[in-house]
């Protein structure tokens, strides 16, 4: 019991640190949020050059004003079925911090919604689904007036180990 208590206070503290502005977007009918400070820009869908021997969710690379950046499909990353590219489909360019440097990366989402100010009392820890659902990249859940947004830890969507692993598994 006491253990659970300390755990709760710890969680509360860490959740308080999550308050701030989030860019929210849709995948299928679920709503997600990314810390606005991680977002560099939003660009329209464009031709993506496929990279052979990488997992399916790595869509490939695009040319962002002369810089080549990798793009991943969040739908496929979360195990949601791929969707047709629509007019609303776009790429959110994010700055992911890795242990030593910051990496620019694009993520394909169905539709960008809005920028929301989320206060700490709206945030709850990610529920545990056991091992069936991977929650390591979920910072928390935000209950806003109309819906629940899943706040993503973008740094962990593609962890270094995963990047390494994918490069190896692909080979």
């Amino acid at each position, binding site marked *: 019991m006491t253990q659970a208590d300390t755990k709760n206070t710890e969680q509360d503290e860490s959740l308080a640190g999550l308050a701030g502005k989030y860019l929210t977007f849709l995948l299928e009918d679920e709503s997600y949020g990314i810390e606005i400070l991680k977002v560099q820009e939003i660009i329209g869908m*464009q*031709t993506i*050059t*496929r*990279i*052979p*021997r*990488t997992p399916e969710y*790595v869509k490939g*690379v*695009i*040319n962002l*004003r*002369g*810089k*080549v*950046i*990798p793009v991943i499909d969040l739908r496929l990353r979360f195990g949601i079925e791929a969707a047709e590219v629509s007019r609303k489909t776009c790429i959110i360019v994010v700055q992911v911090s*890795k242990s030593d*440097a910051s*990496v*620019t*990366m694009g993520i394909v989402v169905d539709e960008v919604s809005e920028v929301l100010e989320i206060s700490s009392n709206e945030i709850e820890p990610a529920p545990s689904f056991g091992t069936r659902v991977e929650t390591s990249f979920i910072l928390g859940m935000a209950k806003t007036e109309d819906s629940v947004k899943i706040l993503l830890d973008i740094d962990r969507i*593609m962890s*270094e180990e995963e*990047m*390494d692993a994918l*490069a*190896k598994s*692909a*080979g």
Partner: protein
Amino acid sequence: MTNQVHAAKEKIRPLIEKAAEQIVMADFSDPSELESLSEAFFSVSGELGDEFPRCAKAARTAAEMLHQGDGGAQGEAAPDLQAIEQVLSGLQSLVEKDSADHEPGFPDGFAPAPQAHDSPDAGDENQDTLAAAADREIMDEYIAQQEAVIPEIEERVLAFEEDQDTEVLKELKRLLHTAKGEAGVIGLTGIADVCHKLEDYIHHREADLQADLLLEFKDWFEQTVLALKNDTELPASENLVGALKDAIESPVDDVEKKDAPCGEKEPEPAEKDPEPEEKPAEEDQGAGQDQPEGLMSPAEIEDPEITADFISEANEHFDISDENLLILENDPENEEAVASIFRAFHTIKGTSSFLGLTPISVLAHKAENLLDEVRRKNLDFDGEVVDATFNALDLLKKMNKDLEQALASGEMYVPPQELPGVFEQLKKALAGPAKSSSGGDSGKGQKESRDRKDSGQAEEKTPQDNSGQPSVQEPDSGSGGGQGPAGANGTGSKKTVRQTMKIDPDRIDHLLETIGELVIVESIVSQEASGLEQGSRDLERNLGQLKKITRSLQDIGMSMRLIPIDSTFRKMGRLVRDLSKKSGKKIELVMEGRETELDKGMVEMLGDPLVHMIRNSVDHGIEETPEDRKAAGKDPTGTIVLRAYHQGGNIHIDITDDGRGLDRDAIAAKAIERGIITTQENMSDEEVFALIFEPGFSTAKQITDVSGRGVGMDVVKSNIEGMRGNVRISSEKGRGSTFTLVLPLTMAIIDGMIVRVGSERYILPLLSIIESFQPTGDMITTVSGKGETVPFRNQLLPMFRLYSLFSVADAQTDPTSALVVVIEDAGRQIALMVDELLGQNQTVIKNLGQGLKDVEGIAGASIMPDGTPGLIVDVNGVVKMATA
């Protein structure tokens, strides 16, 4: 009694103060200063006399030590200043604190311990302990390092046991090799021997390594390091060495007999091992005592900004000194060169002492002293003096590098352990035979005859006689090195100084990146404009103008990163000199095309591979002795030519030796034995020669400390490939070999051939494409239902379909309506099936973004004319993928 005591104390007070002052200020390479210090101690000892027998004895011992030390010619008995300082502070405390004779603490051996008044005189044994104490710091560092290495060794051994991965074995070998080297450096020959033994074992029995034995080694090593740490007795190594020896000699079908002698020789030193902890003490004795410990202890970097400036400035001085040293070697009389090196050392000394970098300033000071003697013509610039100067310069370079690293990581600066040794050498050189100040003809004559006798030292020629061919020639000395044979006019190093500007490399990179973007946008706009129905004349003209300007911007941008290859070549002159001295072979290095310009990053990266290749040429290429060469009808002096030139948009660097040449049969035999190939039939010479790049491949029967482990060529290949270049070998047995490095002009730009595979486009580096053709149906032969081959220039090449390697769905599957591109990697050719060739382009290379760097078969990306990224095929990776 008390009065007497006080009187004696008052008398010695000024003496001690003076001595203290001297010891701080003194330059210990100056014998006269040592002598006066010694006198001061003697008189202190006299004054203390009977009242303080113990302190008097300590002072006398110190005085004697100093006295012996200034006999500098022998050099070995250099005084241990740290101990002397301790004696001094003991005496000071005696005077200041009114203490009794037995109270002040003196270092061991200087005075009898208070309780045992009649212990023996300060002997050699005690000096050993002193030296060992001075080494303690180095030892601690070593121990800390090895403690980190041990788990790595274990991890590798276990991983190797698991899946017999040769990559892991290679890493393990590297670790062992490093461990051996480090142990050797600090004199732990016991450890070094065992490591060497284990290396031999791995080398000979790679096929059936017993992990148990490897782990046994690791345990032993761990215990040894622990013992070193706790100063306890080291574990015995006989069992391990014995087991290794047995393992090497135990019969296995393919163990070569010729390796046996190498194995038998080793255990001898290793068996002497039980008490290796004494060895460092003995070996480093002279070194350890030479300098106060303060010199060797880590120093805080006080002013990072000025230190950074110092580092880059020092590097420039090093370059200048290197160049002038080489001139001097050929022309010892060149005053200009001496003065210039002297100035360089002097500047380094000044700045470093201002920055509180005592080890650097002291070393520079000593080297400066030596050169001053040369400058004043008290010393000839030859033999010992040359070596000492070179070594001092090398060490300074190393220290500067260490300093740079320390600065970057924010750590303390730790002086290198070689320092005392170089001090010693400088001192010896300084004390060396002084020539008569007039430097008359007789002196010169002597020197010449001495040099002639010294047949092993190829570089030591007398320029007076044959200044026309100094041993380091540059027939092609252009803008890069304006110093021809300096002896000819005496003012060799004068050249016009061009104004240069230092620019932060990041800014240049940023500029280049921006230019790259401009190039891309320009080509996109041009393409869009050409698609317009009613393009206006003006637009067309303006676009043409834009294109021209963009291209010239690109050229200028690229040229900003280009520097002459000279700086790397210069180092090779030095290397050949050292190697030829070491091996006793006479070798002449001819350098051509030093002014050839290359990307700065590449010039630096070329250093390592060139070192390995030159070592290889010296060690394996050139015949053992001048007699061997004469017998083969060649000039007794071997020649290595280093030549850089442009060819077809690439840079070629040839390393040519006129030695034995590569032995095709021996290489093939070794490769068959190692299971790399099954037969040498149908293999071109070049393909066979390329086998020497296989990791661990060596036909050397004897492993020397120069080469033979088979690691070097592996390094060459991977480094050159890292620069997107390749290595070609041509060789004629008995006549010599030529290694050609083919490199792109810059690493930032690639000449590529765009190929289409289905809806995907890939870029093949033009450098590796030999030819492309459309096969007919009867050309394709299927081998056992899987592999395919096509004939090409009287050979059957394996053919691979790019679409299946890269899993492209919508590609042409019928070879007869597709194209075959023959690509080459390290002498090996394969055929790659693609849909069609779309054309050439020259583009800026980008990486795939962090984390996607290591995609197999892809070397990077590049922006296509239409603005989308195209993938650059990694030819080496594809060949590996295809043949895996």
